[in-house]
């Protein structure tokens, strides 16, 4: 019973999110509206965490399984992959390092500035 109720709550949020995706003219996927709705419901205490957490934790623990079907889709994209291999590797590796550096340095600077002001 517990799971039926939890699944119903989560799917209801998905349903509202899909309606929002349809009616709001922004390039935002339904899942993002759903994520924000869920967060709002939890922070306003409209929805207690216990009402969804078991099902949510189960889904999130196995989220990698859900990405397998689209990843298998790369078998149809062998041509585009071959042609993209070099730019793909260069762009992904270089930008990952840049992002890591930017986030790390900026947050460290903000933290240290805060500490100095406290002292």
């Amino acid at each position, binding site marked *: 019973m517990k799971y039926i109720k939890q699944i119903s709550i*989560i799917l209801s*949020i*998905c349903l509202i*999110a899909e309606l929002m995706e349809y009616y709001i003219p922004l*390039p*935002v*996927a339904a*899942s*993002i509206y*759903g*994520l*924000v*709705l*869920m*967060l709002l419901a*939890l*922070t306003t205490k409209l929805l207690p*965490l216990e009402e969804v957490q078991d099902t*949510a934790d189960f*889904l*999130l623990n196995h989220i*990698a*399984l*859900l*990405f*397998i*079907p*689209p*990843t*298998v*889709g*790369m*078998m*149809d*994209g062998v041509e585009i*992959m071959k042609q*993209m291999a070099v*730019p*793909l*590797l260069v*762009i*992904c*590796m*270089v*930008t*990952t*390092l*840049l*992002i*890591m*550096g930017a*986030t*790390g340095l*900026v*947050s*460290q600077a*903000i*933290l*240290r500035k*805060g500490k100095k002001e406290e002292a």
Partner: protein
Amino acid sequence: MKELLTESVYFGMVLTLVCYEIGLSVKRKVKFPLANPLLVGAVLIILVLLALDIEYETYQASVRPISFLLTPATVCLAIPLYRQLRLLKKYPLAIIGGVLSGVLTAMVSIYLLSLAFGLTHEEYVSILPKSITTAIGMGVSQKMGGVVALTVISISISGISGTILADIWLKLLRIREPIAKGLALGTAAHALGTAKAMELGEIEGAMSSLSIVVTGILSVIAISFFAPLI
């Protein structure tokens, strides 16, 4: 035999679940970021499909129940974020400032490199969500007209390279604060980076997993501005 297999809706489901299980046990035995259940599982399935000469479309149709769970699972990402809201309230400036600089760096650097390589719009928008968690990234790519498989691959490359290079890179840049390390790993390398951050320490892990969702949401907004540029 082949017709029997491919006509059964259970074929793709069984194949996917078994290959995922194999991937999970490989991950437990081999401590290397490439040996994750997503990549191991997907490669095994591709090999089976090629060996049996089954088309991707046939497979895709039979695993619809799995794909159907993706939106509910993404919605559930709100739960870890809610659990860590306390941290967000404690260090709002460092977290928002750090993640926002990462997201903007991602947008600008991907845009410039895509321009340099002369990528098409389809290729460019497939790579734009490369540092956000797969659940959110796939939806963004689809929405912008990208190739979802290409997005999944770029997300994997980012996660793997970020995890492998994190130690040297963070040391080189003298990023030593545990909070800053965690944020850097989560913003640049999503869930794979978070696994690494958890090895470094509890604060690093919590910060990294918080930054995954914050990065995802901020990126969705940023991408809607950057996607039309190419």
